[in-house]
């Protein structure tokens, strides 16, 4: 097993040899169940719930906001309540979701330098790179360099705003709707919205032939 400067391990393929901490995690779960603090089925159900959230949920929200300007306004003002309109119910406990909109003048990029807070309620689990030491250290000081690695080059006239989720808010970026997509349905629009553009490291990409001219 080895490491990486960012501390992410390469795991053995067989899964037979678990690291010290992996075995401790299993022991902790077993003990918590034995002591009646939680049950195995609660953990199973939570696993299913976590697995059920993915970036396609965020993409649906973005596509709906693109298609309905009044919904978009409500989403930006009060995400939790706007999301109930389309069937997403977020808990009212912290952390809370905030939505920031990219415009022609401003592009947002989200990071959590202190740990790796992420809008899991809409996007599911964060990608490994988001949790990496490289991203957490570079995103704040060299956002344009990071975006370049993801294939996005922004003009100097566009203001880049990096958001560091240091407290109780989790940020979702509402990317700009690509030009030439006026005739696409919401479902088609949702396909253009990748996880990475809702984090803000890239923009939606319109494949050739998809947009009507």
């Amino acid at each position, binding site marked *: 097993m080895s490491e990486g400067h960012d501390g992410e391990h390469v795991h053995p393929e067989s899964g037979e040899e678990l690291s010290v901490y992996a075995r401790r995690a299993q022991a902790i779960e077993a003990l918590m169940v034995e002591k009646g603090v939680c049950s195995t089925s609660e953990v199973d159900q939570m696993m299913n719930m976590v697995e059920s959230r993915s970036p396609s949920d965020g993409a649906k929200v973005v596509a709906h906001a693109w298609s309905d300007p009044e919904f978009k306004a409500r989403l930006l003002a009060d995400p939790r309540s706007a999301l109930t309109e389309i069937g997403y119910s977020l808990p009212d406990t912290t952390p809370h979701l905030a939505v920031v909109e990219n415009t022609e003048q401003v592009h947002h990029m989200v990071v959590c330098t*202190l740990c790796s807070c992420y809008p899991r309620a809409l996007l599911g689990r964060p990608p490994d790179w988001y949790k990496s030491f490289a991203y957490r250290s570079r995103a704040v000081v060299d956002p344009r360099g990071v975006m370049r690695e993801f294939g996005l080059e922004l003009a100097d006239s566009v*203001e880049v705003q990096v958001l560091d989720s240091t407290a109780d808010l989790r940020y979702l970026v509402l990317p700009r709707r690509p030009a030439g997509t006026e005739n696409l349905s919401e479902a088609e629009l949702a396909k253009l919205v990748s996880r990475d553009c809702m984090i803000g490291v890239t923009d939606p990409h319109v494949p050739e032939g998809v947009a009507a001219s």
Partner: protein
Amino acid sequence: MRVDSPSHHYRTPTYIQGKTGVVVAICGRYRNPESLGHGGDGMPEQLLYRVSFAQNSVWDRYRGPSGDKILVDIYEHWLDPVGV
């Protein structure tokens, strides 16, 4: 309103300590994380501000345009007002 982030407080990243920024939003009232972190009830709630800093005032080595910003969510008790 300009605010200054004076010394190291819980969850205030080192890179903005001592820097001056501008409040761009009030994010709401939340329980005090220092108290919550130690098993307390976090009361009374504190105002959470979104504070914007010019990147080139935060980093000597920032290479992007002067309009670029970094925004950090900071609790009111970790901020000092500076002038108007």
